[in-house]
């Protein structure tokens, strides 16, 4: 087996036993990128030299035999909306130019402290706004399973890099499904932790009441390892939680007997691709056979989630993106006065989806419309959250499809923004309610494209979500399927 194809737990074990070195592993991953990324286009920036340097340092630490993190010496990819000191950060936007971050995001600092090797920064929809990675200001990323298809978004580069073995694992961010939907499209495991579980310090803000950092990995065991390294309170992020961090790997017992699994009837509706429904139903049957109790539940406000999300998220984005004014960093246009400098810098620097969302957000917050749109959405958001509170009185986890269809064709939805927004229907409610949820592969459709199963947990109960996902992987082989590249 090629070294680049290893999972994080496999690579970590081989490094620890000194069967391989971090330099060998990192070289293998960099060669894999060189051999495949002209087709996949997952990376915006490669950090070849610093990665090799970090690998050498990791080998020295491994040789010392001191106790260390399972991430020590493992090559990882980071979505390009995390600040990385000394490594260009673009957020896939022209407005940031060649921005060189003066500090590391907390999540990145934790990876570095654990001795992980950072091989590069992955592509995304500009400012994480999109479901296809087509909104990157630089180029679209292709799905490794079919290069004519989207990898999902916004963490499309990270998902494609993991699926194509261009890294051992990756970091993503998820505001409305941006880890889970690309994970589903590319056949990898993506976990959005509870709001507040992982620090967002140094993440380029999109919608601050929902943004969350999470792992994108080749299997659930890896997801547990990476979450362990990321989770915990950070004084630099006032929304990060003091809630105790569980031992996620210890939670993977493979046991789901008597676990109550809720299946929301509103998630099985018209318009879902038949193969997606079939695979998800099959997975539910599998859990039942393993001894879980299946409960039909209701999340009655599901059909309002897209409208609520695109009001709340765009309102927050329009305010977060006000900082791109061309004064202290980023693109500055040459103009006659201050106001014109702002207006032209922002016109030239932002892409069309970002402008659309700034316009929507500004509209719903503007005088005369604030009550009708923004406050109305915040009231319905409470109803959506209460739907989950009520459902979790009857079940321990909720199982749904991750997306209503498998990966669509590049260009298929670019001219129709609302159609693109509606494809987030199964993931956005979870961000509105602040819950943890994971997507893992549960089948392939007739076009050989991966199908994702979503497992939603109670607040701060990532351990149960991971346990359920791992038990499924122990009984099935979908997570081991690889695209032919």
């Amino acid at each position, binding site marked *: 087996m090629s070294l680049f194809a290893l999972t994080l737990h496999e690579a970590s074990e081989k490094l620890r036993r000194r069967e391989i070195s971090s330099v060998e592993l990192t070289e293998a991953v960099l060669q894999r990128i060189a051999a495949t990324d002209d087709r996949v286009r997952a990376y915006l920036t490669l950090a070849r030299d610093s990665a090799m340097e970090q690998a050498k340092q990791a080998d020295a630490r491994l040789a010392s035999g001191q106790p260390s993190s399972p991430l020590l010496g493992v090559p990882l990819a980071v979505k390009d909306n995390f600040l990385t000191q000394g490594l260009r950060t673009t957020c896939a936007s022209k407005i940031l*130019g060649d921005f*060189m971050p*003066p*500090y590391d995001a907390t999540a990145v600092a934790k990876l570095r402290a654990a001795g992980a090797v950072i091989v590069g920064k992955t592509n995304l929809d500009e400012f994480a706004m999109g479901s296809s990675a087509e909104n990157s200001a630089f180029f679209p990323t292709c799905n490794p399973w079919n290069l004519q298809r989207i990898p999902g978004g916004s963490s499309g580069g990270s998902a494609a890099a993991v699926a194509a073995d261009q890294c051992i694992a990756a970091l993503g961010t998820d505001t409305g499904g941006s880890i889970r939907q690309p994970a589903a499209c590319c056949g990898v495991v993506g976990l959005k932790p*509870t*709001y*507040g579980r992982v620090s967002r310090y140094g993440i380029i803000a999109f919608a601050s*009441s929902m943004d969350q950092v999470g792992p994108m990995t080749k299997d659930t065991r890896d997801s547990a390892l990476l979450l362990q390294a990321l989770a915990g309170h950070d*004084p630099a992020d*006032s*929304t990060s939680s003091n809630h105790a961090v569980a031992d996620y790997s210890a939670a993977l017992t493979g046991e789901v007997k008597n676990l109550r699994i809720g299946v929301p*009837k*509103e998630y099985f*509706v*018209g*318009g879902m691709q038949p193969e997606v429904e079939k695979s998800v139903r099959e997975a539910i049957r599998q859990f039942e056979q393993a001894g879980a109790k299946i409960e039909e539940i*209701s999340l009655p*406000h599901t*059909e*309002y989630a897209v*409208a609520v999300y*695109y*009001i709340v998220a765009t309102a927050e984005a*329009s305010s977060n993106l006000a900082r791109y004014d061309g*004064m*202290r960093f*980023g693109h*500055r246009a040459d*103009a006659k006065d*201050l106001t*014109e*400098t*702002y*207006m*032209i810098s922002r*016109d030239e620097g932002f892409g*069309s989806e970002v*402008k*659309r969302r700034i*316009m*929507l957000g500004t*509209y719903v917050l*503007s005088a005369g419309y604030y009550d009708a*749109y923004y*406050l*109305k*959405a*915040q*009231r*319905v958001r*409470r*109803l959506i959250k209460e739907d989950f509170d009520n459902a979790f009185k009857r079940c321990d986890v909720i199982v749904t499809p991750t997306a*209503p269809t498998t990966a669509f064709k590049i260009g298929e939805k670019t001219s129709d*923004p*609302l159609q693109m*927004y*509606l494809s987030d229907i199964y993931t956005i409610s979870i961000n509105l*309610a*602040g*819950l943890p949820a994971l997507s893992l592969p549960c089948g392939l459709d007739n076009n050989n494209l991966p199908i994702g199963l979503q497992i939603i947990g109670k607040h701060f109960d990532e351990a149960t979500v991971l346990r359920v996902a791992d038990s499924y992987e122990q009984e099935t082989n979908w997570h081991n399927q690889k695209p032919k590249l």
Partner: protein
Amino acid sequence: MSGPGEWHWQRPYVKNFSMKLTRASVQRVATLARLRLTDDEESALTGQLEQILGYMDKLNELDTANVELFSHAMDSANALREDRVANQPNTEALLANAPERDETFFRVPKIIE
């Protein structure tokens, strides 16, 4: 609220919306957002925003008169800390990204007429 099976995740999209936006109101919002829009962008955005805002009117199907505003996904308290310097700003690194600088200052267009 429609029952399960009755709604289609794409169906709202094919509905006819009554929402009407004028180009003047789009221009007003663009000015608020400090965005210059070309004529083509303005005209495309007028139609798209009309469609998306029309879709959002779906929320009016719900009576929310007695629903409290959402504030936070979980109970959370203010995060307070001692008022002392915690970071050590690196002036050079911070100014390295400036479009224009003057020694240790950001250089910006004239602000006061």
